[in-house]
């Protein structure tokens, strides 16, 4: 104990959103709507309104044309218009306007031509034929104190009045995607000189909780739009009529567990003992506790675990759309017993859940369900512990426990296109690396190396995550999801080399590289003469005619791009 390292435990506001946010700015904000209507006494002493404004928000001074949020972006902030007005585009804008590439698949001719057109220099670029933000796209870059912004030269041309909605002072936008950690559904542009207050998700949630009017307003919007759609997509509720879904949505409870910015602390967490790590994970439901409702995972991941001796063994992982506790709820309703949770559910990093109380289910859902859609009844709890444990484990095919733990502990469950290599079949020939290089101008976009469990390696290649934390905070929108495939890609032209995405990626799958011209000389910024840096990563051969070259180049069936968020896919591959 005497020799142990001592650090100051991080507090809620250790890292303010804007260190320059001062008391004067906060006082000014308290005099504008909706903060004037808020009662400071309804906020807790540890988290006062002024503290939220000081630490969880920042003021952005914007010029006409500045893009505030882009459709498809990820972000953890909501926005409040302090002064001026903004335009919401009701139709999708072209990718080049949003700072994204519009990559088209190459035909056979262009694909073969790569054989002789590929550069001999590493990371060679030819920007002479590439549209920069100022050319043709109608956009440009502007530096503000809050960072670099892309702006539109001609707003009416890009967002015609008939395809836009105007937002004025006191209006809020971007809150649903911030609260549900989903992609922004529309692009919002400053339509005049304006001041916008960006409020971090945590602070915004606090404002909703402490200010009834604001909370009700936001919640109503969410319940009317996203929540009903989410419930309809849930298998259990699929056959329920619309009026029941509406009633269910009204009585659903929102809960959030874990840390929204889990990726920041992920690496340091990994150094801890696994038992300790599991115990530290926020509990959503604990094995043996009273069953109080059905849990629906709205976002993020959760660990399903079972007590095993003195520790907890991971049984499965749940992700968006999965449910927990239906078996117990139905059993207790059908038998009149009060059986507790059979397993524990813990938050992995960050998880957003919806809870439907048992009373609501018994009133609205269970009487309407056909008996054929009931889950298997719970087993009799009599018998020795070992046999009981076997019965409590889900009956479906289960993954080897060690592999399950490996995928969960390293958060590979986030990957929808992870590169999984069977080392018992891999001859280390590097055909996959050569194929990647051949299709990316002689620059391989992954490293055939990475964490290993047994004979399974997850290589350092972009996993095109379900929760793409790399996309949070990109100032120019250069990193984004491809509209057709959903894969995460970087637009080399609009990337400004700020490293935000590389620093955010918890798997070290994004590399910052210095770019060169075709003679091997570093390309330099025309103003500062500093070498130009770009972010690079696997784009899953977006431009190639036949998908990821790495997988198709492996002669030994050792390499696959796999959706680890789906345990069935992993089992199918590992049991090949």
């Amino acid at each position: 104990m005497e020799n142990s390292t001592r650090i100051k435990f991080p507090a809620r506001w250790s890292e303010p959103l804007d260190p320059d946010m001062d008391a004067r700015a906060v006082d000014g904000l308290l005099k504008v709507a909706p903060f004037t209507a808020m009662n400071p006494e309804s906020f807790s002493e540890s988290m006062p309104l002024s503290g939220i404004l000081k630490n969880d928000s920042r003021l952005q001074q914007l010029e006409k044309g500045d893009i505030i949020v882009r459709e498809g972006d990820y972000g953890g902030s909501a926005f409040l218009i302090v002064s001026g007005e903004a335009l919401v585009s009701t139709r999708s804008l072209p990718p080049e306007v949003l700072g994204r590439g519009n990559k088209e698949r190459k035909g056979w001719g262009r694909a073969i031509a790569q054989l002789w057109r590929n550069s001999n220099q590493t990371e060679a670029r030819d920007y002479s034929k590439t549209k920069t933000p100022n050319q043709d796209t109608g956009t440009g870059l502007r530096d503000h104190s809050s960072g670099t912004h892309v702006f539109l030269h001609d707003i009416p041309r890009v967002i015609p009045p008939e395809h836009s909605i105007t937002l004025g002072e006191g209006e809020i936008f971007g809150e649903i995607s911030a609260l549900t950690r989903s992609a922004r559904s529309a692009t919002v542009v400053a339509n005049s000189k304006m001041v916008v207050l960006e409020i971090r998700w945590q602070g915004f949630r606090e404002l909703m909780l402490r200010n009834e009017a604001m909370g009700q307003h936001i919640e109503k919007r969410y319940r009317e739009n996203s929540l009903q759609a989410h419930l309809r997509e849930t298998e259990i509720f699929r056959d329920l009529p619309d009026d029941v879904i509406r009633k269910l949505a009204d009585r659903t409870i929102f809960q959030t567990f874990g840390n929204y910015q889990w990726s920041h602390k992920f690496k340091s967490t990994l150094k801890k003992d696994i038992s300790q790590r599991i115990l530290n994970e926020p509990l959503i439901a604990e094995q043996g506790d009273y069953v109080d409702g059905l849990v629906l995972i709205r976002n993020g991941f959760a660990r399903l675990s079972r007590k095993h001796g003195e520790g907890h063994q991971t049984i499965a992982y749940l992700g968006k759309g999965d449910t927990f506790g239906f078996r117990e709820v139905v059993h207790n309703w059908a038998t009149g017993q009060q059986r507790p949770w059979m397993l524990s559910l813990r938050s992995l990093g960050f998880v957003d859940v919806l809870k439907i109380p048992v009373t609501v289910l018994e009133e609205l859902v269970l009487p309407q369900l056909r008996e054929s859609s009931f889950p298997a009844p719970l087993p009799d709890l009599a018998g020795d512990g070992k046999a009981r444990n076997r019965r409590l484990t889900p009956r479906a095919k289960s993954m080897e426990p060690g592999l399950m733990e490996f995928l969960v502990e390293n958060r590979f469950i986030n990957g929808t296109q992870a590169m999984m290599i069977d080392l018992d079949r891999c001859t280390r020939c590097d055909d996959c690396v050569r194929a990647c290089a051949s299709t990316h101008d002689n620059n391989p976009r992954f490293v055939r190396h990475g964490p290993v469990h047994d004979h399974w390696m997850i290589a350092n290649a972009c996993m095109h995550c379900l929760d793409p934390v790399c996309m949070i905070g990109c100032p120019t929108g250069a990193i984004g999801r491809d509209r057709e495939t959903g894969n995460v890609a970087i637009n080399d032209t609009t990337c400004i080399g700020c490293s935000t995405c590389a620093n955010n990626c918890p798997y070290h799958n994004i590399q910052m590289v210095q770019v060169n011209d075709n003679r091997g000389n570093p390309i330099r910024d025309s103003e500062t003469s500093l070498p130009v840096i770009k972010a690079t990563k696997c784009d899953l051969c977006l431009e190639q005619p036949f998908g990821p070259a790495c997988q198709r180049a492996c002669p030994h069936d050792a390499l696959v791009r796999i959706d680890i968020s789906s345990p069935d896919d992993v089992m199918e591959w590992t049991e090949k």
Partner: protein
Amino acid sequence: MKFLSQMNRLSRRRLRNVTLTVASIAMLAAIVMWMDRSLLHSSFLTGYVLIGSLFLLAAFGMRKRLPMIAGIGSASFWMQMHIYVGLGSFAVFAMHIAFRVPDGMLESILALLYLVVFFSGIYGIWATRSIPRKLTSVGEEVIFERIPAFKRHLARRAQTIVMESCESTPVLANFYVNRLSKFFECRRGLGYMLIPTGRKRRHLIAEIEELDRFLAQEDRRVSRELAIMVRKKDDLDYHTAMQGRLKLWLFVHIAITWSLLIFSVVHGLLAHAYGGGLA
């Protein structure tokens, strides 16, 4: 058919490919027998099938160089074709030489080249199935091209910690100079590269452990670290030997394939020049 559904994907593929190969060979054998009975030259037919097979087998190398046009089939598909066409070619070769040892100089060289390529291919199937498992069992994964750098780092680190321990006792330093420096700094011999074993590693670790009784507590920590480094170096040597073997095998297999193709074309031209055509 129940057993088919119980087989995994790769076993089902193997069964399908073996069936196809055997059926193709049986069909060719039937045609050859019919031609021979009809007093036709079946050797031209088998010759064309054989040279066609050889070009198809060699085309796998070209497919590897064209990853951007994966529409011509995945490398895995080509690999399967390579294996089964290669295996089937042996039957065609046997039919072509009429199950006799060739007597001419060119034919003998050609047959020898074919056999070397064929058996190196058989070895390749075995090696590519068995060596990866051996490498995996080592534990540490390492990229072949990075091995020399890792070895250099280990050698430097070993030298540094031994030098640091010199102040208290020369025991470890002497041992390093006499027994370990060569192990860390030099390449392993041909014997090890052909049949890598853990004998040297076991001997050295045993010797390091025996030194313990001459060492102070602090130096024992150094000796334990040295033992770990010996294990690591030996693992790297094992990777060098096994990964190197796979690379060398492929190089030899491809190099002889090209010689075989050239000789085959010459043989075909001569056969046509002096054989009087297909009839």
